């Protein structure tokens, strides 16, 4: 089953609605990465609220999406991991290191807004306030 990818301002939102096969996941990855370039977006949100199982392939695909999207100039954030899923993931050692995760879609949008703003700030010479 195909995952709809919606465009919302500068961001792409992929909302996974049901359990996906490995092929579906790979397809999602390719579609997202292609769209990131095509639509020149700055952020990607993958919503996994509906998933109650997350296997190693799914986790690896999500991580790949985040890394690939970064190479293409977009930040990725995973939203909506269920508490039980989160705990099962860490027990399996699937911790999504280096990938941003937040509670839900709203948080995800706020997070990306912050990241984008910061990047525009980064472009200007910024004073090192409260860092390091």
């Amino acid at each position: 089953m195909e995952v709809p990818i919606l465009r919302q301002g500068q961001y792409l939102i992929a909302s996974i609605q049901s359990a996906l096969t490995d092929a579906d996941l790979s397809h999602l990855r390719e579609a997202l990465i292609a769209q990131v370039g095509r639509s020149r977006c700055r952020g990607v949100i993958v919503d996994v609220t509906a998933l109650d199982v997350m296997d190693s392939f799914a986790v690896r695909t999500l991580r790949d999406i985040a890394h690939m999207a970064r190479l293409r100039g977009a930040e990725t954030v995973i939203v909506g991991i269920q508490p039980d899923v989160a705990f099962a993931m860490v027990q399996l050692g699937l911790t999504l290191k280096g990938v941003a995760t937040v509670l839900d879609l709203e948080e995800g949008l706020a997070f990306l807004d912050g990241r984008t703003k910061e990047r525009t700030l980064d472009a200007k010479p910024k004073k090192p306030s409260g860092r390091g």
Partner: protein
Amino acid sequence: METKKSMSVSTRASDPSAGALTESSAGLLRELVAHLRQNRTQLREEWARRITRAELLTAMTEEEIFAEATAVYDNYVEALETGTFEALQAYSRRLSERIIPRGVETDEVVGIVLLLRDVLARSLFNKYQDNVEKLNRILDSYEPAANRIANTVAVGFVEERERIIRQQQEAIRELSTPVLQVRERLLILPIIGVIDPQRARQLTEQLLRAIRANRAKVVVIDVTGVAAMDSGVANHLVQTVEASRLLGATVIVTGLSPEIAQTLVTIGVDLSEMATVGDLQGGIEEAERLLADRAAIPGPQAGREPGTELNR
């Protein structure tokens, strides 16, 4: 000798049939019970005296010991007579309920039951010392019953103890670990007492649910009240921190005691992924700083790897 052998064989053969005793054996048991009834006063006094002399049941007064001894004695004789142990079981359970809170130990209970057995056996020796063969037969019917009675009382006592232990374990488990919201998006989880794997799991589940329900951004886990931590619990803590990160919450651990810090470093648990602050106050200050950071311009690290941002 010949008679005794055939006697014991016949007893054993009839045992499986619902404990029905052979005619002669039942007669002997009746005679035995009559003897115990007749000498009730003298025997239980002797028993109470022996208990005091052996310094058992020191937590109880002499009158109490005598009262309990009388009750146990009567139940004992009744169990011998009827061959049913329900009444004795119920009594020993009630007795245990009464005496366990007063600090009576298992060996004391076993001791007094064995003493009663000795006292009664000795009185039988005295009564039948002229008739060794009859003494043997009487003992044949007395011993199995007496052993079973001793077992019943001891097991009753131990069961009662175990019941109390189970009850207490449950009570401890139910002392739920509260997840408290201090202010918008900030949770505190104070952990007090011993963490076993089961409690650790329950704790994590509670925390993750609370993060979701309260939309928490920062969680302070305070372990000031935890006396010791092994590698299992420490790793669980690390997992909790990582799982919280997956829900978008940063965890700050506070109040690691010097002993725990030493243990964790010695056993080589990797806590480098964990943000730690000395005490709860510092933890809350740090948390407020993080929240303020995020509310204004999200800092470069805000949310990127929330689990690791503090630890440098």
